[in-house]
């Protein structure tokens, strides 16, 4: 018999409580989960598929998939870890169908110039503001560097930096060992440091800090 203790961190997660309420038929509980997590989820999914409409559709499918299987839900981790395990599987399956790969590569190749910097191709930036242009260039460069990462490295990095998952939770979400996650994150960061080197120099330090 598995005795559940009150200091079990996953049971202290209010989202787990909402999911258990949804399991018991409380639709409101599930709607709250969606309201709380859907924006971050769409932003996560968008870094795997090339357009916002597709990302929103996939995000809805991910939540519906969880809802359809609610009757068999058993909490084994924080809800967020559970959500991103389903989400990562869903995104990687979509990518493996092959519709998006080519488009990502062409975006990446199209942006980078010979000196390693990334051209700004944002047409709706108003001219005249150097700070706005610099911020747009930086965002474009960072987005391109993330998109260029292999999918699993990208997933690990996004879960760490934007979803706030611990190494242990990333391991659970990606169904990998913790050493494997450390290795993925190390390779991802090494690649990002290379691609973003022009923005990581000592001279850029103040500029980056100002923007952050």
């Amino acid at each position: 018999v598995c005795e559940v203790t009150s200091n079990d961190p996953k049971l202290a997660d209010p989202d787990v409580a909402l999911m258990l309420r949804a399991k018991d038929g409380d639709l409101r509980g599930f709607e709250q989960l969606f309201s709380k997590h859907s924006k971050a989820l769409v932003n996560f999914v968008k870094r795997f598929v090339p357009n916002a409409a597709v990302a929103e559709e996939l995000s809805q499918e991910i939540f519906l998939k969880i809802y359809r299987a609610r009757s068999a839900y058993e909490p084994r981790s924080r809800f967020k870890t559970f959500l991103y395990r389903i989400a990562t599987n869903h995104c990687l399956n979509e990518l493996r169908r092959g519709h998006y790969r080519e488009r990502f590569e062409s975006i990446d190749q199209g942006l980078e110039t010979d000196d390693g910097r990334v051209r700004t191709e944002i047409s709706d930036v108003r001219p005249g503001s150097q700070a706005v242009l610099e911020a747009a260039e930086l965002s474009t460069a960072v987005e391109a560097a993330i998109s260029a990462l292999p999918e699993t490295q990208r997933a690990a990095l996004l879960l760490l930096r934007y979803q706030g998952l611990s190494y242990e939770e990333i391991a659970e979400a990606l169904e990998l060992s913790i050493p494997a996650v450390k290795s993925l994150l190390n390779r991802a960061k090494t690649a990002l440091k290379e691609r973003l080197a022009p923005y990581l120099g000592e001279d850029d330090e103040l500029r980056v800090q100002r923007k952050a």
Partner: protein
Amino acid sequence: MSCAFSEKLELYVDGALEAAARAELESHLAGCAECPAEVARLRRLDELLGALPESEPSARFEATFLRRLRAEAVPRASLRERLFGGWRGFALAAAAAGAAAVVAVGVWSGRAPEPETERPPTAVLQNLDLLKNLDVLANLEVLEGVTAEELEAVAEIPEVGG
């Protein structure tokens, strides 16, 4: 980097080191010629990543989802009721029973079924084939709303599939 501590720098910046290891690394940083610069670089990378703006979903996103969710939440008839409950389901069941009778009579009389060239397959036999395959069944109009994905949902989700 050649320093023995270099492999722990990422864990340190990510807050993934336990207290004792963190304290040890911090005292190392005070005297190392290489590691503080790498820590600064990793922190700048982290700041760059953190400075990316988060985009808002479209205005219709939430409403669209809630509509889909509430449609899902309406109690639905079971698979059996959907198959055999309506008049179409009854027709399908009757067709299947008819086909079974035809096959039974064929076997009982010891006579092989007539070749296809002389007698094209009937709708009854086609329906029998359909009944053998749930994936195909999911495409039938009687199962409208139940997708193949839905049928597989439980198996696909690790928390559920086991």
